[in-house]
């Protein structure tokens, strides 16, 4: 059997780069091509870097020249800052994906497409079910930013899937990534010394460890898992709980001022939070991971709380106080109060 030939878009980014690294170690994988405008950020040995823009119709030539049988589309961008503005970001996400799938439709040797999406397609709303399964959509689809892009991109993927039923289409809806190496708005948010939160709201958040994310993308590329899957660690944590675990101090901000603060932080280059991510900080979002575990056959090694703990310990977040300190205080306070009550009762007995 011929070896698998893989083309990865977004090779300069964390997931794309690490996928290429994993595939390089696999003797069953033949040639690997990485498409991006920027060179890969990780060390790659035998991956061929193709400097190309997926928005350009030339991408069809790349696909035909490389004769790949697998395309991994991991180039959808979440943060406008990286792309150089929202308009640019939308251009790359939506127009780029359109071009890519148009090219894919012409690629006769293509057998598999894996697409990186996000649970953000479910939006964040208090009137939706608490837990989203893959096939039940939200009451209203996101209308702004990354979430809207992801939803439109998924639609292009699905219509491509209908036109090429011979190609296995896997859509992975990733929850928020966390880990010591990956750089996302959320990891930056957790690294702030004082963390602004929405006053009176405490969203449930679901996290996927970067190692699990890499593993899931690798398996989706190597194995056959057609369908749409939510990809996240088990369980949830509350944002307030996560901040306490990280030893951070939350600063509740009244919701009307959230946009203002987010804008200021964007200007200062601290955290690049877009409006739909502010909604997420208010309402949270949880996807059902049952299908990932049963059909896809992978249970993430880190559940949400463990992934967060790993991130906190390995990225050495500055904590206001540590858990050991808290336990020490607990014991000291106990000893003090217990001694106080004892001495009082013995005093009373003496009298």
């Amino acid at each position, binding site marked *: 059997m011929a070896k698998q030939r893989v083309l990865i878009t977004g090779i300069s980014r964390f997931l794309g780069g690490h996928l290429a690294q994993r595939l390089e170690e696999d003797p069953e994988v033949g040639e690997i091509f990485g498409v991006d405008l920027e060179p890969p950020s990780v060390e790659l040995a035998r991956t061929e870097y193709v400097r190309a823009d997926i928005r350009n119709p030339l991408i069809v030539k790349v696909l035909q020249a490389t004769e790949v049988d697998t395309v991994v589309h991991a180039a959808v961008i979440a943060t406008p800052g990286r792309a150089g503005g929202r308009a640019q970001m939308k251009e790359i996400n939506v127009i780029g994906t359109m071009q890519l799938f148009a090219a894919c439709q012409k690629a006769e040797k293509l057998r598999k497409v894996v697409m990186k999406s996000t649970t953000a397609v479910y939006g964040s709303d*208090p*009137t*939706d*079910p*608490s*837990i989203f*399964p893959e096939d*039940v959509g939200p009451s209203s689809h996101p209308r702004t930013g990354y979430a809207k892009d992801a939803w439109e991109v998924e639609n292009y993927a699905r219509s491509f899937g209908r036109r090429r039923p011979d190609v296995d289409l896997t859509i992975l809806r990733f929850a928020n990534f966390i880990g010591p190496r990956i750089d996302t708005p959320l990891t930056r948010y957790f690294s702030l010394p004082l963390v602004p939160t*929405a*006053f*009176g*709201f*405490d969203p*449930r958040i679901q996290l996927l460890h970067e190692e699990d994310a890499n593993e899931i993308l690798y398996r989706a590329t190597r194995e056959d898992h057609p369908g749409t899957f939510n990809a996240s660690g088990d*369980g*949830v*944590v*509350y944002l*307030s*709980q*996560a*901040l*306490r*675990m*990280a*030893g951070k101090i939350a600063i509740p901000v009244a*919701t009307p001022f959230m946009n203002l603060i987010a804008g200021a932080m964007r200007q200062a280059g601290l955290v690049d939070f877009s409006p739909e991510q502010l909604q997420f900080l208010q309402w949270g979002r*949880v996807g059902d991971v049952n299908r990932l575990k049963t059909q896809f056959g992978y249970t993430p090694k880190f559940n949400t*709380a463990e992934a967060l703990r790993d991130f906190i310990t390995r990225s050495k977040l500055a904590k206001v106080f540590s*858990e*050991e300190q*808290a*336990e*020490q*205080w*607990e*014991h000291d*306070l*106990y*000893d003090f*109060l*217990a001694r106080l*009550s*004892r001495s009082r*009762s013995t005093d009373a007995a003496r009298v």
Partner: protein
Amino acid sequence: MAEAEIIRIESGRRAETQLCRGRTADGRPCRNRATASGYCRRHQPSEQASTSPAPSRFEADLERTLAFLRRRVTGGYHVDDFGFDADLTENILLPILRPLFDRWWRVEQRGLENVPANGPALLVSNHSGTLPWDALMMKLAVYEGTGRHCRLLAADLPFRMPIVGEITRKSGNTLACAEDTTRLLDSGEIVGVFPEGYKGIGKPFRERYKLQRFGRGGFVEVALRTGAPMIPVSIVGAEEIYPMIYNVKSLARLLGFPYFPVTPTFPALGLLGAVPLPSKWIIEYGEPIETKAFTPDAALDPMFVFNLTDQVREAIQQTLYKNLMSRRSVFF
């Protein structure tokens, strides 16, 4: 240090010599330094009790409280996928309600044996009282009676509100929708539902104890699909806590509420008018209506669903009348 040396020779457990061998209230290893006995002063085994007195009740309470505070400060507690925070609910939220339950409304429970000790069940109750105190009391009643947490289904309004939404979710409740209900019942939880919704809780005082329409019977469909038994619950007493004489509809529309109540004391007495009247409450759990015998396809037959809905509704209404007849007065 000299003390630690001695223990090492005796027990041979090098790594643990420095620290106490006891466990704290939440089962973590104690981190206090050990004395010669291998335990810290707090976790001395009972044979040492002659030298140091046994921990008093105050000390036990203190230990529990401090352990709770430490968990809250460091985030060391578990929440389920729906956001149910058992630690917070059992230690803070339910204890706050207990005086209302015991002293103010003196809630009497009947038919507790009808609530299963394990496995799924759908508690279907009447709804009244302008503010959902009846839901909170039912939640506490089920916890007091069986030690289980009743997961209530609420409208979207509380979840939209700041603080209220947060507490509603953390105490284990969720949005009244088929997806969440199915998921909870499938995982073997007790779910509490108030099919009358706003029509029940916001009805005028003159219509007290008259059950309103039971929504669209969605709860019956879910019970049929999951095979969970339905337990009719009749709450007597909640109708009298805020007798609603008038509903200022225009004001309600302006504020985005389903109704704006006028009671003899509210808004005339301001916030004081928000104090509920101390009526005497009876919560009765009726005989379970089993749904296992029916196939899940029965949920697709609207006529059958209507009939079953009516059966539950009738059971609640009859028990309401019976308990109303038997009570001596509204307040005793």
